[in-house]
């Protein structure tokens, strides 16, 4: 075999240098374009803030209130469910079940808002209007009945406890909850008859002067809660699952029960992670557009009642911006609303991300220290 000297080709190096320059330019360009969203919003909204017409800002008040109200009700509904589910699947669920349930619940996030909004506005809202008392009872009764199942399980014999282990409880509870749901539906009208003269809505109106609108904040909260649950669950579960196991075992070795180890040690250790999960959930709830558009009556009100509608900033943008003249006051107002949404979510997400990274470093130290 003869050794031929291979020539080096200057073309290759030229290509490399050009490509590197292109990638750098393109990469920086894309990043600038993406980050330019904030710049654009400030640019468009600034004339309004600098002008004399600051008084028209009051137009935003009901929108801000509606946004807060919708997000609060959604979080009120979603957080207990998402965090409870996260705690259960991180600490109690059998690994085999967890490997199926977690992706399933995360899939919930993929369901488009427009579909959730449609179901909420066209199916849930009329149903709740007809069964208001039952709905409220079900909202309270379902969690209680899950606790009741736990109490019964605690009282049951060892044999039954082994047959229906806690690690698969999420499955055992499904038929139980369905049964309890229908029990509540069956019993509530009787109670309604006895307590509130047959119709809770009339009673609320007569006794408290509360109006009831078909598509109201309660419906929005339920639907948006449904949309928020998966992201909060997923992040919270990750945070809890990353709690170093020796930490939990240490607590249990000191005589704490498993539940105490969860609440006293794991929740404290994963606290920042849970916080960032809640923040992400809040960010989603504030910006969700289609659900609010379809499940609320879109009237800009300043009412605290969960049975009345509202209009959120996101919904107002979707409805009014296409009709607003470019550069007009309404246009700038709505861009300002978008800027507020942008800043809020960006701030909240950054906070969540920073907290999460700090937590991860803390776990790594704990892991290496153990």
């Amino acid at each position, binding site marked *: 075999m003869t050794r031929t000297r291979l020539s080096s080709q200057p073309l290759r190096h030229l290509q490399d240098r050009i490509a590197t320059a292109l990638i750098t330019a*393109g990469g920086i360009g*894309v990043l600038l374009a993406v980050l330019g969203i904030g710049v654009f919003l400030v640019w468009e909204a600034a004339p309004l803030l600098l002008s004399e017409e600051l008084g028209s800002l009051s137009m935003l008040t009901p929108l801000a209130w509606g946004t807060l109200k919708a997000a609060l009700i959604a979080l009120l509904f979603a957080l207990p469910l998402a965090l409870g589910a996260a705690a259960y699947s991180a600490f109690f669920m059998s690994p085999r079940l967890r490997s199926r349930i977690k992706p399933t619940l995360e*899939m919930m996030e993929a369901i488009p808002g*427009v*579909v959730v909004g449609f179901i909420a506005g066209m199916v849930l809202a009329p149903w709740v209007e007809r069964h208001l008392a039952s709905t409220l009872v079900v909202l309270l009764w379902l969690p209680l009945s899950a606790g009741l199942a736990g109490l019964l399980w605690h009282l049951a014999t060892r044999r039954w406890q082994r047959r229906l282990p806690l690690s698969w409880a999420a499955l055992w509870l499904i038929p139980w909850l369905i049964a309890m749901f229908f029990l509540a539906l069956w019993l509530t009208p009787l109670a309604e008859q006895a307590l509130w003269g047959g119709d809770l809505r009339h009673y609320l109106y007569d006794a408290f002067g509360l109006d009831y609108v078909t598509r109201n904040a309660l419906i929005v909260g339920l639907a948006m809660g449904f949309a928020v649950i998966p992201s909060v669950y997923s992040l919270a579960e990750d945070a809890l699952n990353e709690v170093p196991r020796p930490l939990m075992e240490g607590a249990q070795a000191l005589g704490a029960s498993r539940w105490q180890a969860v609440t006293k040690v794991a929740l404290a250790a994963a606290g920042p992670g849970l916080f960032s999960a809640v923040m992400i959930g809040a960010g989603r709830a504030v910006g969700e*557009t289609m659900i609010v558009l379809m499940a609320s009556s879109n009237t800009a009100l300043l009412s605290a009642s969960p049975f009345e509608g509202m209009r959120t900033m996101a919904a107002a943008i979707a409805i009014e*911006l296409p009709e607003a003249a470019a550069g007009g006051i309404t246009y700038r107002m709505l861009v300002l609303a978008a800027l507020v949404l942008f800043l809020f979510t960006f701030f909240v997400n950054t906070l969540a991300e920073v907290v999460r990274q700090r937590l991860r470093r803390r776990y790594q130290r704990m892991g290496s220290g153990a």
Partner: protein
Amino acid sequence: MTWLKNAMQQGVWPWLCAGSVAISLLMLGALLALLLTRGLGHFWPAGLDEITLNNGEVVAGEAVREMPLPDQTGSERLYFTGNRDLDDARWRWVAIDTIARQTQPADLLRLERRAWGDFIGYLEAVEVNGERFTGDDAWQQVQQALALPTAQRTHYQLTLRTPQGQTLRQSLATVINVEAPNAMHLGQKLRAWGSEVWQFLSQGPRAANTGGGVWPAIFGTMLMVIVMSVIVTPFGVLAAIYLNEIAHQGPLTRLVRIGVRNLAGVPSIVYGVFGLGVFVYGIGGSLDEWFFDDALPSPTFGTGGLLWASLTLALLTLPVVIVATEEGLARIPEAQREGAVALGATRLEMLTRVVLPMAMPAMLTGVILAVARAAGEVAPLMLVGVAKLAPQMPLDGEFPYLHLERKFMHLGYHLFDTAFHGEDVQAAIPLVYATALLLVLIVLVLNLTAILLRHHLRRQRGSEC
């Protein structure tokens, strides 16, 4: 007290948490079950009832649902009766108590018509070129004629009779389909169901979205998503390569990375505002002034359209692609890069021949996730370019074939519009269910593909290390 404490800690609280999982699963299951049954059930040829009321009145139609009577005991039933051209109503509530007799006559027909919606009633006779058929012969003639193209059906004149006894003459050319659901056996019903589903997927909407299909919306969604992918893939990959392979890994890069990640959490409507302000009013407005000033003041690019919608969604999904690609790049062992470089490869050669092929599945995952997100996103599209009913498809035989400035239909927006702004929402609802089911299926299948791809990728990596 300790007993109670134990019971709470060992039984109640853990099961309460388990209940959260169960409730979430139940809600998801209920939603999917509702969409599946309503969405697919609509196409099933339902039986037709003919009822005689206590006062002698006759009503015929498809039973839709029952509700308790307001402020009374007993319940009432909603019938779809069709025949809007004759009695100006399509729906009829009937109190159950008032029904004297109920039958399902085998010869009761349902005609799907091009105008006025469905007809429910009986076939009296068919006239073909002056020849008149009645009874079973008429039915046979109609069956044969339905296989013919529309133009040849004009010779067929149907004489129809409503259950109330009115007669109506109708040309077969205006009829899309005739069926006698009460006389069908299971196989026929299945076949009819299949053809209805196919029509839904392949035809355009009819009769103010209460009939027909969603093909233009499917097509518009697909086209928008494809244009978007063409834009987002190269730019997302470029940015990811820059961030991961070229940029100095200092605090600034870390900051930018967090920023990009967070943009994924910014509400989609904000991107819509950006798209409207920058693409439509800014760039589109300028384009109109420079190139399309003869068409002004009616805008060409200065209004929402396919291109602006795709661009806006590309921006919206950019973080998804960047994050997924970066994850894929970070997973490639440094040894592979060093191996290539040690053989004398330049950075470009190392990237194109070793790194990018290895990161391909991750990029694909990112693009699929981006497509899934874009397919389900509606809010920004309301600002930058969907139409209720687009008169022209954005892709046709006319030069330049792909009309990026045109408005287009989108499944998600079609759903929203039909459900909330339709004329006869009651009649359109079953189709909305079907549309919702289709949309959910598309998005779930895309997500599942991405998950499986990612899973496959991780397993492959894991086995080789």
